[in-house]
C-alpha cells in the first residue's frame, strides 16, 4: 500500500482503535474495583452494629472508593467532557477512626452517590468491554482465523454460522469479520461516551456541591486578596513614613532654620534653602515611584492599550516588543490594573531571564474574557511555580477569577496566557478630581 494511503486509513481507524483500548481499560477498572468496593462497603456498613467496627471501617473504605472513582473521573477526560470532583476537603482533626470522621463521611451526599454508582458503574463498564471485544472478534474473522480453524479441527463457528458446516460458510467468516470490525470500531467511541455520560449523573458534583466548591474557592481567593491588600497598604505606609514624610520633616526644618538665619547670615540661609530644594526633589521622586506602584498614571491617562504600549518602551534591557492591541473599550479599573501589573512583571521576566530578542504582547477581549498573551523567543524553560514573580501574578489574577497558563518548553518559545473574565465599557473618565 502507498504510504499516504496507509496513513489515511490509519487516521480513519485510529479513533475507533483508541476507543477500543479505552473501553477495555474502563471495563477492567470498573468491573474489578467497583464490585470489590461495593462488597467492602456493604460489609463495613453491616459491621456498624457489630461492636461498632463499621464506624472505623466505613470511612476507610470510603477513602478507597474515592481513590478509585477519582481515577474513573480522570478517565472521563477521554470523552472531552471531564467530570469534576465533588469532594470537599476533609475537615481538620477528622482523622480516620474518629467519630467526627464517620459523621462527616455519612453526611456527605457524595459518599452515597458514589455508593449508588458502584453497581450500575460495573454494569455499564462491563458493557464497555464490547468496545474492545467487537473489533477483536471482527479482526479474528477478517484475518481468516475461523477458516484456518475449520480446516484444522473441522469444527468451528463464526458470526451467523454456528457451526460452520461447509467451506463456503468458513470463507464467509472474512466478510462478516470486516463488517463486525468496522461496526465495532464505529460504536466503540459511543460506548465509552455513553458510559461516562451515565457516570456523570452519579459522579459529577450536584448543583449544590458545585456552589459549595465555588464558595470555597471564592473564600480562599478573597482571603488571599485581603492579605495581599493589607501587605500592600503596610508597604505603602512604610515607604511614606520612611521616605516622603521624613523628607518633608527635614524640609520644614531647613526652611525654618533658613528663616531664622535670613537676617544675620543670609549666605547660610541661602545654602539651607538650596538644600531644602534638593530634599523636596527627592521627596517628589519617591512619591512618583510610589504612585507608579499603586496605580500607574499612564494607565489612568491612556487606559490599558496605551499603558501597555508605554510599558513596551521601558523594558530594560531593551527587547523588541510587538504590541497587538484589540480592545474596543476599557475593562473595569481594577481588572485593568491587574492585567497591567501582570504584563509588567512578565515583560521584566522576559528582559531579565529569557535572553529573548523579540517579545510580543497581545490583548483581546472575546466572549466576556480579556485574554492577554505575553510571549518571547527566548530560551524557554520557565517554571510557572518557581519564583515569586509568576506566583504573584497568579495570585493577583485569582482575585478576579483570572487564570494564567505558561508554556515554556526548553529552547522556547515561552508563552504566558492570562484570562480575566470582565466586561468592557467605553473609555471611562475619572469622576473624582486628580491632576497630572
Amino acid at each position, binding site marked *: 500500500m502507498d504510504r499516504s494511503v496507509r496513513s489515511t486509513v490509519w487516521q480513519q481507524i485510529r479513533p475507533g482503535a483508541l476507543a477500543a483500548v479505552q473501553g477495555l481499560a474502563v471495563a477492567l477498572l470498573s468491573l474489578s474495583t467497583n464490585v470489590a468496593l461495593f462488597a467492602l462497603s456493604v460489609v463495613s456498613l453491616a459491621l456498624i452494629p457489630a461492636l461498632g467496627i463499621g464506624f472505623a471501617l466505613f470511612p476507610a473504605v470510603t477513602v478507597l472508593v474515592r481513590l478509585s472513582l477519582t481515577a474513573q473521573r480522570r478517565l472521563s477526560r477521554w470523552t472531552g467532557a471531564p467530570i469534576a470532583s465533588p469532594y470537599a476537603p476533609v475537615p481538620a482533626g477528622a482523622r480516620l477512626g474518629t467519630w467526627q470522621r464517620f459523621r462527616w463521611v455519612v453526611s456527605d451526599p457524595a459518599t452515597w452517590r458514589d455508593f449508588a454508582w458502584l453497581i450500575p458503574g460495573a454494569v455499564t463498564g462491563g458493557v464497555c468491554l464490547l468496545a474492545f471485544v467487537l473489533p477483536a472478534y471482527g479482526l479474528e474473522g477478517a484475518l481468516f482465523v475461523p477458516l484456518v480453524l475449520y480446516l484444522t479441527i473441522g469444527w468451528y463457528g463464526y458470526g451467523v454460522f454456528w457451526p460452520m458446516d461447509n467451506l463456503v460458510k468458513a470463507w464467509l467468516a472474512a466478510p462478516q469479520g470486516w463488517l463486525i470490525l468496522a461496526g465495532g470500531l464505529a460504536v466503540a467511541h459511543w460506548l465509552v461516551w455513553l458510559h461516562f455520560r451515565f457516570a456523570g449523573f452519579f459522579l459529577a458534583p450536584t448543583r449544590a456541591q458545585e456552589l459549595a466548591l465555588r464558595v470555597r474557592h471564592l473564600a480562599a481567593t478573597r482571603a488571599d486578596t485581603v492579605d495581599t491588600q493589607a501587605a500592600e497598604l503596610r508597604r505603602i505606609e512604610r515607604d511614606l513614613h520612611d521616605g516622603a514624610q521624613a523628607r518633608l520633616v527635614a524640609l520644614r526644618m531647613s526652611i525654618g532654620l533658613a528663616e531664622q538665619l535670613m537676617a544675620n547670615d543670609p549666605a547660610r540661609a541661602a545654602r539651607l534653602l538650596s538644600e531644602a530644594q534638593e530634599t523636596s526633589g527627592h521627596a*517628589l521622586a519617591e512619591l*512618583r515611584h510610589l504612585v507608579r506602584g499603586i496605580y500607574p498614571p499612564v494607565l*489612568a*491617562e491612556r487606559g490599558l492599550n496605551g499603558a501597555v504600549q508605554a510599558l513596551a518602551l*521601558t523594558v530594560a*534591557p531593551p527587547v523588541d516588543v510587538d504590541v497587538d492591541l484589540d480592545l474596543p473599550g476599557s475593562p473595569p479599573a481594577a481588572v485593568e490594573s491587574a492585567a497591567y501589573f501582570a504584563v509588567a512583571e512578565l515583560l521584566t521576566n522576559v528582559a531579565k531571564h529569557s535572553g529573548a530578542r523579540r517579545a510580543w504582547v497581545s490583548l483581546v477581549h472575546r466572549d466576556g474574557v480579556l485574554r492577554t498573551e505575553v510571549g518571547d523567543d527566548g530560551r524557554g524553560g520557565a517554571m510557572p511555580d518557581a519564583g515569586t514573580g509568576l506566583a504573584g501574578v497568579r495570585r493577583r489574577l485569582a482575585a478576579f477569577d483570572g487564570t494564567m497558563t505558561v508554556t515554556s518548553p526548553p529552547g522556547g518559545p515561552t508563552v504566558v496566557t492570562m484570562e480575566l473574565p470582565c466586561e468592557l465599557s467605553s473609555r471611562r473618565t475619572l469622576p473624582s*478630581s*486628580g*491632576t*497630572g
Partner: protein
Amino acid sequence: MRVVIAEDLALLRDGLTHILHANGHQVVEAVADGPSVLPALTRHHPDIAVVDVRLPPTFTDEGLQAALAARMQLPGLPILVLSQHVEQLYARELLADRNGGVGYLLKDRVSNVGQFIDALRRVAGGGMVMDPEVVTQLLARTSGMQPLRDLTAREREVLGLMAEGRSNAAIAGRLFVTEKAVSKHINNIFSKLGMPPSDDDNRRVLAVLAYLNS
C-alpha cells in the same frame, strides 16, 4: 514673552503665573481645562504655551492631546508640556513632528526657577527640551548594550546633556570644560555610535533620542 498656561490646580496655576511675571513674561491667559486650551492658543498666538498633561474634564491625557492637536493646527507653535510623571511614550509622541519648539518636563523642575525659565526660552526659540528623567531612563536601559558600553563616563554624561537638548556652550558650562573639549567629546560619541554628525541642535536631540530609543 507672551505665555498661555493650561493647569487645573489653582495653586500651581498661580505659582506658574507668579514665576513668569517675576521673570518679565506676560501670561495672556491661564486656562483650567482641556477644551479651553486650543481656543486660547488660536486666540492669542502666544510665544509659548505651558500645558499640563492631565486636565479636566476627563483627567486623562487631555492636556497632551490638546497640545498635540495645537501643533497640528498651528505648526511650530512652541509648547512646553509639564507633568507629574514622565513617559517615554509621551516624549516620543511630542517629538514625532520633528518641528522643534517642544519641551517635556517634570513639574518639579519649575522649582529650579533659573533652569525652568531657561528651558522656556529655549523652547520658545524653537529648541527641544527633554526632562533629564526621560534621558536617564533611556540611558539606564541601554547603557549595558553595545556600542554604548564603549563610551567613557564623560562621553555618556555629554550624551545625556545632548539628549536633554542643551547646546555645546551649555554643556561646557555644566561640566566646567571648554566648548572645544565638548565638541571633541561629541565627535567621539557620534563616531562610536556610527551616527552622522549634526550641528543643528534640534536634529541632534532627535538623532540621539532616536538612537537611544531604537
